[in-house]
């Protein structure tokens, strides 16, 4: 954890030296603020018909109206709630499950390692979208099931990462010392190994946020995620695809996915520079 504290001391310096980090924080911060406060200042209701249908962007409706006459801008802004909450749940669950599996595999080795890692190999053998689609289709369409499907696809990445990290740390001298001092396995793992193994997971998780937003939106685009009339970005783009000549229906939600993806990427990149200087 000392690395993190060190980084905090250089916080200001890091900010001024890294325009990409500032951009990332601004973008993600903007969307978080929107998600938390939109109810207070929204002009239109995202689910109500507020104008004639399929209107091109205008001063009243910055991103036009959709096939029912709902305001696309309002729906895009509301959509961030789905994207941020689903990606938060997915990333946290995947990190917890994956890290646990990886740590156990790396720490105990032998059979535990073989069995757990073969499970990881098999999951990673599937192209992500296809596995997510198959799981989501099996569970039935819906936002919650889409989240489960993405977790199923995502956890093995962290398992591999954490296993490698634990194997790296476990061979160091202080672990040997703690073991000689009579520390239990549990204590060894939680007090001596895991605190030194988190950094790559944190970096990777930050980078992954954008990708998870993308994958979840893909499932909704296919029709397996959020169901109408929910203003979810993937579902809105799917709407746009069926009204091909009204390009503005899809424009906003796609831009939003792109923005969030870039934002998380900028932050993750900067985190890697700060937390793990060896990489560069």
């Amino acid at each position, binding site marked *: 954890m000392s690395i993190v504290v060190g980084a905090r001391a250089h916080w200001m310096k890091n900010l001024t030296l890294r325009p990409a980090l500032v951009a990332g924080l601004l973008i993600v911060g903007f969307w978080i603020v929107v998600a938390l406060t939109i109810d207070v200042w929204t002009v239109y209701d995202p689910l109500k018909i507020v104008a004639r249908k399929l209107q091109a962007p205008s001063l009243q409706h910055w991103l036009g109206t959709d096939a029912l006459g709902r305001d696309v801008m309002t729906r895009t802004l509301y959509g961030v709630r789905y994207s941020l909450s689903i990606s938060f749940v997915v990333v946290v669950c995947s990190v917890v499950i994956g890290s646990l599996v990886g740590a156990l595999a790396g720490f105990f080795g032998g059979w535990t390692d073989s069995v757990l890692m073969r499970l990881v190999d098999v999951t990673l*053998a599937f*192209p*992500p979208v296809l596995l997510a689609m198959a799981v989501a289709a*099996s569970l*039935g369409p819906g936002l919650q099931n889409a989240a489960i499907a993405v977790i199923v696809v995502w956890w093995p990445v962290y398992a591999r990462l954490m296993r490698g990290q634990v194997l790296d740390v476990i061979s160091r001298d202080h672990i040997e010392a703690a073991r000689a001092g009579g520390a239990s396995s549990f204590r060894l793992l939680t007090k001596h190994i895991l605190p030194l193994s988190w950094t790559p997971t944190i970096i990777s998780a930050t980078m992954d946020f954008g990708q998870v937003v993308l994958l979840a939106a893909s499932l909704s685009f296919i029709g397996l995620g959020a169901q109408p009339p929910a203003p979810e970005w993937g579902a809105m783009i799917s709407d746009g*695809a069926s009204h091909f000549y009204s390009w503005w229906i*899809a424009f906003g939600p*796609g831009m939003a996915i792109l923005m969030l993806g870039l934002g998380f990427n900028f932050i993750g990149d900067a985190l890697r520079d700060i937390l793990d200087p060896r990489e560069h």
Partner: protein
Amino acid sequence: MTQYLFRRLISIPLLLLGVATVAFFLSHFTQADPLSALVSERQMNNPEVVAAAKQRWGLDRSLPEQYLIYIQNLVSGDMGVSFRTRRPVLTDIAERLPATLELVIFAMLFGTISGVALGVLASRFQNRLLDYFARLVALFGSTVPVFWSGLLLLYLFTVKFSWIPGPGRLDPRADPPPFMTGLLTIDSLAAGQFDTFLNALHHLVLPSFVLGWSVTGIIARLVRASMLDALGQDYILAARAKGAGEARTLFRHALPNAMIPTLTIIGYSFAYLITGAVLTEAVFGWPGIGSYAVDSARTLDYPAIIGVSLIGASAFLLANLITDIAYAYANPRIRLE
């Protein structure tokens, strides 16, 4: 090398078995009755059909027995019948495979060429404006949703500018070439139908750009890093000292060495391409496996969607195997081990 190859080859059937096991559980834990994944709704009332399906898939037996039967059926190529198309899943997939293959090959070509170009450019102008620009272009590609960029570009280039023909692989009035490989560009050339060839190529431009761009970033990032690595080596200094020009230094001396690690990522980016192809095909009305998967998922056609993920996983494993072998071959340190 032989030992390494042997180990890799042995792992493939085991992984495939694992993949099939996952597929079995998926097909078993569908919300619907597993029977409904085998028999179409209309035939549900036909006791003969239901009994036959039950028997063939062993649904009246215990779970372990069902599992064995499932694996047996898979080995003999039986993935069940799609209840959307009412045809064997494997037949459907085989018919649509060439379209996907053609799209993925062209996308791979575009992604590799643009990725290597951007990576070399970025390394040559490290930490200068051009470097940041190249990295931003690459980053955009891997962040942008293909089902969105595809949609907007299709609108822009077909409706606004009419530069690009609409969706599909060929114009409706074009003359499809006789079937040889199923790849329209190759078949039309072989049959001497030059107009059809151009038309197929024209249809390929936009989807392979959209799909290929998604891997540009992954490739560019690695090319940049390994080019920087190579450019810092002594032999580059030696080449420069001998008076080699900039282009020669970059492309003759540095790039071949930088390409070895890149080879791996090009192979692995295949996974992204399969993934991206699913969504790209859906947007471009491309009659391949991807749009088949999406249509199947939309209609909850379980046998079809599970069949596609099985095939996808196999293709993915195969691609990784080929990549590993190519890498081992290109890198003497592994080859001679």
